[in-house]
């Protein structure tokens, strides 16, 4: 869902990003964008105003990220790592903007296990850290605490932080029982963190301390995504063709 509008953005394996209008019970595709990259990377949206938003999508080159101005679909820029970096494909993207400024930043997790912070206007990497041995599969960033957490195909979760000089630092890593995390999501109230695991399980941690709180074993195939509703309910989608809804630590 795009913020403050009844529109839904969907990305499919058919290389199309579709914009759906869901207002008043409609369900029609109003616009679509053709992507030029075949990969796992999901695009990221940053709303600037009511009718203007910025979209980050994997770009044409194998390691590129393209920034689009929406809804006009004009390409703002292409973020291409320096020639000697060789980070591999971007695996996950996250656009964000500090509350004080209007400068958009992009966090990108790469195939080599590193996470980079891009300054979109300057088109350069502010900071880059190597967090994982395996490709970064998902991360989430808590701009309040300036801390983020990422999961990879490996057996660990990494917590990192961003300081005032726009530099990333690894804070800690947490070992998991089984390898493979497809998505990491922090609850909107910044209290708990959930991960979608390839081991069919959803894990819940306390975000501040990273204390494990629960292991939800329900799905019979790997869990692809986890998301929170505004009322705090947790939804998880899995390869076993089911979506589970959970109520956990409900005191928002």
């Amino acid at each position, binding site marked *: 869902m795009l913020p403050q509008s009844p529109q839904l953005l969907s990305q499919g394996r058919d290389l199309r990003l579709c914009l759906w209008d869901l207002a008043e019970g409609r369900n029609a595709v109003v616009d679509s964008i053709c992507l030029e990259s075949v990969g796992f990377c999901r695009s990221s949206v940053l709303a600037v105003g009511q009718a203007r938003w910025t979209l980050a999508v994997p770009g044409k080159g194998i390691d590129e990220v393209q920034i689009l101005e929406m809804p006009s679909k004009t390409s703002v820029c292409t973020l291409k790592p320096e020639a000697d970096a060789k980070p591999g494909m971007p695996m996950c993207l996250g656009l964000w903007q500090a509350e004080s400024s209007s400068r958009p930043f992009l966090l990108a997790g790469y195939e080599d296990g590193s996470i980079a912070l891009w300054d979109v206007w300057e088109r350069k990497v502010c900071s880059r850290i190597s967090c994982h041995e395996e490709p970064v599969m998902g991360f989430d960033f808590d701009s309040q605490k300036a801390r983020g957490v990422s999961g990879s195909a490996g057996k660990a979760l990494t917590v990192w932080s961003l300081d005032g000089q726009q530099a990333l630092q690894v804070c800690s890593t947490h070992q998991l*029982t*089984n390898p493979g995390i497809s998505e990491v999501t922090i609850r909107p109230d910044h*209290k*708990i963190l959930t991960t979608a695991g390839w*081991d*069919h*399980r959803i894990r819940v941690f*306390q*975000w*501040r*301390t990273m*204390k*494990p*709180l*629960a*292991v*939800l*074993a*329900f799905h*019979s195939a790997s869990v692809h995504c986890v998301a929170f509703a505004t009322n705090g309910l947790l939804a998880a989608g899995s390869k076993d063709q*089911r979506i*589970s809804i959970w109520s956990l*630590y409900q*005191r928002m």
Partner: protein
Amino acid sequence: MDPAQSAVRLTVREAIHTLSSCKDIGLILSTLEFLKRYLGETKNPALPEEQEEFETVHYSAFLRCLVSKLSPVWLELSPDGQLEELWDSFFLKGPADQAFLVLMEAIESTAGPSFCLMKMAQLLANFLSQNRMAAIMEEQCRPQKKPGFPLLQQTLLNKVVGLPDHLGNRLQQDNLTLFFPQNYFRLLGEEVVRALQVIVDALRGGLDCSVSFVSQVLGKICIQGRQKEILDVLVPQLTALTQGSCLWQRVCWRLMEQIPDRAMEAVLTGLVVAAPGPEVLSRLLGNLVLKSKKAQFVMTRKLLFLQYQHTTSTLQSLLGYLAMDSQRRPLLIQALKELLETWGSSSAVRHAPLAQQHYLSAAILVCLAHLGEPELRDSQDELLGSMMAGVKCHLDSSLPTVRRLGMIVAEVLSSRIHREGPPLRFQYEDDKLSRELLALATPCTAGGSTLEAGGSSPAPAATEILEKTVDGEVESANSSVPQVRPQDSDSDLDSDDEFIPYDMSGDKELRSSKAPLYVRDCIEVLTSSEDMERWEAALRALEGLVCKSPEATQEVSVELAKVLLHLEERTCVSGFEGLRQRALVAVTVMDPARVAEYLTSQFYALNYSLRQRMDILDVLTLAAQELSRPGHLKRHAQQVSSGSGGLCLPAQAACQHDHTAGSGWRAVVEERIRSKTRRFSKGFPRRELANGPNEFNSVAGYFFFPLIQHFDRPLVTFDLLGDDQLVLGRLTHTLGALMYLAVNTTVAVSMGKALLEFVWALRFHVDIYVRRGLLSAVSSILLSVPAERLLGDLSEELLEARSWLADVAEKDVDQDCREQAVRALLLLERLKDRLLPISP
């Protein structure tokens, strides 16, 4: 003749004459008042020699005269009750023994129910409540010189102890509560203490006394089985009185020593039960076991070997008593040796009831707790020998409880007497029984006697408390630290700390990825794979695969059964036995005829371990149960699908399955209908029973007959009628279960016939477990074979079985066997009842 004597005699004769003839109340009263002078306690008592003369010679005769005058008319001569009072006082004030005897005699000879009888009963009650019994006893304890004394004492003894019986007989419905045995003997207990108190006082005063009469009373009461009433009063009081008083202790010991031999057992048994602990017993008995042969026999043999109804605390008192004195300790060692000898005798293990074996084991453990290492070392060889024999015959037993007793005792024993080598270790369930027994074995004091340890014990206790308080302070100091710390270190303290983690024990490594997807793959993996993870995954997946694909299973069923039967646990797989068994059962259910044929043939084949043979029996029983259950296939599929994932939250798992999701709409519709429908009355919610043909019907023969055919042909490695009686017991149980599951099948009659023959052949088997199996088999025959066919085809066998059952119900040593036999007999009775209305 002494003038005093003749004067007294004259007065008494005159008085008797006056009483018998005169109706003038004034004269009667004055005569009685005058005679009362002889009893003392009046203003001007008679001379002492006159008093003595009256008491020894004339008192009884005069009382008899008084009794004979007793009637309502006579008493009413003086309306103010003065006469009645005087009459009473003659009985209550004079020598208690004579008064008591006269009273008892009069009560026995008076026809009841009458005024006189009630009057005398009242008087007797009065007599008892004025502590006259104590007076009788202390009188008997004084040194006596009178001729004929023993005879009198014997009569007195009989009357004192037999009082409740006599009065109960005489008064029938009108009996007073005081004369009920439960009240009377408690009172007598109080009186005994009172009498002893007087005796102790007399001894302090330098007088000579004997407690033998009290001992006799005590003994006789105990022989009559009233130990509990009297000792419940006596033991606590004596415990308190003997504390710190040597004289009391000596009196008490003497009291016990004087108890006649034939009463010794009753008294000692009562005492051991009533005493709260070994210290009290030791104080009350002294070294009685060393002085009296009979007491020694009772304490060291009778209570240990011949009785087994006592509680373990009684055992602890008894053996603790033996252990408390250095002179008695040899008896304890001797007792341990004898106990172990009995424990180790195979005949005792086989024939003694379970409760007795438990009692013996407990006694051994208590002995061990009391004995120190040096004492044990002296007789180490002997003890070791008995232990080895005992362990063997206990472990050979087919009853799990007996085996466990053997293991526990052997473990403790070996750790105590064989300290050099590694102690024996067995695996047994840690349950109430084993914990209780092990608790008995913890030494109360290391080697020394409890008395010595008792003196020094307060000191360590005090230091312990000190240490505890110190620890407590440290702890509280520590605990105050973390309370402060988080507030300092973490400024953004929020309610996160209140998040309580869920149970995460189910978070295990995922391994389902390697599980094979086809039954054939499973066989291959199980036989040849070197990859242990894959092997385990295959084993776990097998049951589900077998149930999902019946056709594929039937193609390879026998091969699969063979693989599973020979499967050995290669790595440490949790629940390996269960997995293997469930898979085997599933295979058998899918293709019953062929697999059962294979399994039963293997049961009697060479080169199998007992474990495997018993597995075969278990699998056959479970598979038969599965087959005979109505609608088993559907249920099976459900079980499998719910067991497929390692689910941590099973409650949520229920909604996962297709069939429940599919039936979800139905539930919704039904709920809607229910909410819209108004019912005027509601019956019981009817539960729909699954029904269908018994699928065991067509294959029961494959399960049953091959098993029952060859039991009497021993192989080199397998001899059912010899050493392998455990398997025979399992076989009988299995056959019984198969018979029971074959209810409503056509083959049941011939199965029943074969089984009855089998039972008949083995009915006198020595092993309890086998006999239990046989009895349960008989019960299942009675339940499964139709009644008409039973009477038609099997009537003679049934008659024979019936007499055998009656015999077992009466005489078998094992309680379970007796109960089962009774149950089978009841079934037979019911069979008769069911047929009788049809026959006429």
